[in-house]
């Protein structure tokens, strides 16, 4: 549902924005913050910020990409701040996040999907940005570089690194020691 419809959306009309973009925003928050409560907190923060900074949205781009930027920045801020450290230890989180939204479907497929989600959730924040935009949203490098405000070359090199990390995690591939050291 891209295109003129959303561009004309009023940033002050939060309810309409939640209806059209809410799910995707909540999904981004889930990838960053893993557990459901934290993701929902982040979700609210995002829309608060959207409302408060609505004057800055000049309508030159699709409002959704503007929302995505705010969501990514909000999630990263929350990851930085301390209260995050008091939440659930990492190990349980994958299971919790999946089960919180459980719906009954093919068990094997669900496990496979969860494996992918967990692998992405384990990535350092700077790689998460590009991976979400590339794999989930399907944006091209040029668009990603504009959304994140970084050089296309940086986007490429981050995707390269992210793919190596994902390969290792998902497909147990040997990587050379350089890339292993690159993991923080």
């Amino acid at each position, binding site marked *: 549902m891209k295109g003129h419809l959303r561009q004309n959306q009023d940033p002050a009309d939060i309810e309409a924005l939640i209806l059209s973009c809410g799910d995707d925003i909540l999904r981004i928050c889930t990838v960053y913050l893993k557990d459901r409560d934290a993701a929902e907190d982040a979700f609210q923060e995002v829309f608060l910020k959207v409302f*408060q900074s609505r004057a800055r949205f000049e309508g030159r781009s699709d409002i959704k990409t503007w929302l995505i930027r705010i969501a990514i920045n909000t999630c990263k801020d929350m990851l930085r701040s301390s209260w995050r450290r008091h939440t659930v230890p990492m190990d349980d989180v994958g299971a919790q996040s999946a089960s919180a939204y459980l719906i009954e479907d093919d068990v094997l497929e669900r496990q496979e999907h969860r494996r992918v989600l967990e692998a992405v959730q384990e990535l350092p924040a700077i790689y998460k940005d590009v991976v979400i935009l590339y794999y989930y949203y399907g944006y091209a490098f040029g668009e990603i570089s504009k959304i994140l405000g970084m050089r296309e070359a940086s986007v490429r090199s981050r995707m390269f690194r992210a793919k190596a990390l994902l390969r290792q995690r998902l497909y147990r591939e040997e990587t050379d020691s350089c890339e292993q050291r690159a993991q923080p």
Partner: protein
Amino acid sequence: MNKERNHEITKGLRGALQSVRVSEDLKKRTVDRVMALKKGERSRSRMAAFAAGLARHRRAAAAVLALVLCGGVLWSSVGVLAPVILEGSEGALQVRAGLRRFESFDALKAQLLKLKAMGGKHAAGFANGSWTADVAENALGSQKSRTVAPEQSTAGGAGDDYAKTNVQVQGVDEADIMRTDGRYLYIASKGRVAVVDTGGDVPVKLSEIALEDGGSIHEFYLLEDRLILITTGGNVRGVARTESGGAAKPGSAGKAEVRPSQDGEAGGGSDGADMAPDARAVPPAPPSKGEDEPGIAYASDTPAAEPGGNASDIGGELTEEEQRKLAQAKVYDGYRYVQMTGVRVYDISDPSKPVERREFSIEGSLLSSRITGGRLYLVTNKYLDSYAMGEDTDAADILTNYKDTAVGEDTCLVPAESITYLPAGQTQNLLSVATIDYMSDAAANIETVFGSGYILYMNQTSLYVTSAYYDEKNYESGTLIMKFDVTKDGVAYRCSAVVMGTALNQFSMDEHNGYFRIAVTRDIVSGVKPTGAAEIDIAIDRAIASSSNTENRVYVLDKDLKLTGKLSGIAPGERIKSVRFSGDVGYVVTFVQTDPLFVIDLSDPSAPKVRGELKIPGFSQYLHPVGDGLLLGIGQDTEVNEYGAAVTKGIKISLFDVKNPDNPKECNYIVIGGKGSSAVAEYDHRNFVWDAGRKTGMMTAYIADNYNYRGVQGLVVRVEESAVLLEKALNPYELGYGSQYYYGGYSKLIYIGDRLFLYDGTGLHVYDRKTYTHKYALDLEKGGALSPSAYGEDKVYPEKGDVRNGATTESIAIYD
């Protein structure tokens, strides 16, 4: 990654997330919160009017202190009286640390084991985040400060017409990578120092200094007849073990004997490559030759220190205890390999034959250094890995190794009893300030604090180190300021304080007339409760209203770091990009999408205030006063793309007229290079050279055009009739020198008389100062003329829009 796997990831991600939906309840909660905000907006404008009235009564408000005392833990083994935190009504915390030192090594070890037990909770001494109510007086009140006369740090030479290092404080020298005395030129290049004689028609390489232990020369000081190097890395042998039992004898300076190396030179030798020995391989062997050394317990003698020799028998996972011991056993072959930061004093009365006179080195990483009053002050951090500690941990594992040839050839340990316990220091680090009298053979004085440091600011009487401070209660980042007095013997810790917000660099702070000023950016976590002080709440509201939840502050503290004055709410939503304090005035540049330059009036320490503001696109990262009420700014030009992100698009050099503090103006600006360009001076003030006589500035920059490399260039700018002009861009790359793979970090442009010397990281280029013609290129490694690019590159000047073989312009430096 092949197509199939790409598709799998996409499918997996989308599949896993497809069940994530916004519930009606979440939607309602979110909308309700936004509605509450809408209502709040209406009341904000009224609060603004109220606050204007409040500002006039700031003095009265500042006099009210809220004392916050909490119950807490008394560390009996450490003998420390925990400090009182005094909270100024405007949010600066004053931490009065009892000037306590650890009673013994065991006390320090106990402290570290407690840290480990807290499992990563970084608050040393915080326990439950509480403190005792005992008030501890500053025990150093009786220390006399040593008054020192300002010192000329560079040799006069014949004539004075040459570039000096751009230092922050007059009379306090800073290290640099390229310096001259008017005739001889010294350059730190590729870990060594080259000595060049510029007296003749062409420069000639006279000599070179390299370190025998494999370390590298980071930067240096040039004084009359003395070259003082700051070194890092190197393969140095430290203290293996102290007497078994672990305690360093008090009063013995913690010195443990180290058996001299069997293969000759200490610190050198064939195993230079083995910096991080794999302790898993073999238990360290006892000395195979020579007599038994009394009092030294070698690793294999004490059962506790034996690494998990049975791991292979078990054939499986090591126990936690075994893992810990492996991490701890850095001792190999009876020695410990430590990373040291060093100082080397060379006699250069004859520049062609530098002679080493003294060496001092200390374990840890370099923070910074200064020279003033005839002494060198070296500040270093040593990280203590509490994970690797256990009850059997030896003193030599924890205490800082150091070596001072003025005292002896052996490596010693800084004793635990000399370490000041700073409860507010939250990290597991030992911060050391070593004072070295480089002209004499007096032993170095080492002052150590249990805490860490990030930024150093020093004037002639005081030394300040700041580090990050985390306020767990309010989830905010602050800055811990530690003040040391310069004394007859060295430095002595005096006091500390915490301010809320983070400082950018050394220019964010300044001492003037006894008052310490610091400018910080405060990141506010939304949801923080109003404090009740209307002014702060307004600042918070405005900050949250922007999308970046920040506001900026200037704090003024007195000589005991007590809060005197504060200015908050500067440019909410923006971050500080550069600061310059200059007597009674401070200039602060903040940025989100436009760059306001704020002029702050500091003439009344209790009431700093904003006088004038100028809003322009782009931002300055370094500000330099150039006289006549003019300020030069070096930074970036920016534009906002359609997605709302501010992107940089070239180097911007601006000239500001700040004669009228209420109305700063931008005279003009020049933009150099395109996207991807940056001037080294933006990050390193020492790269900037200002020739006041000719009103000319020089610097080097990495120039790119839409990320296509155009060379590491020397820029010459001139200020004339209230305008800044680009005189010349010197580009050796155009002539075939240099490489696109060099990012310019180690480069500098200086003048000596009527010649310009440009070091671009790959060679030394000489230009005529009047005609800007390239005269000569010196090969700093081999001596003699430098031949054009050895990298086999296409020397044709790239066309606009040309991308070179997909090479990224991330920082890649290629060294041979």
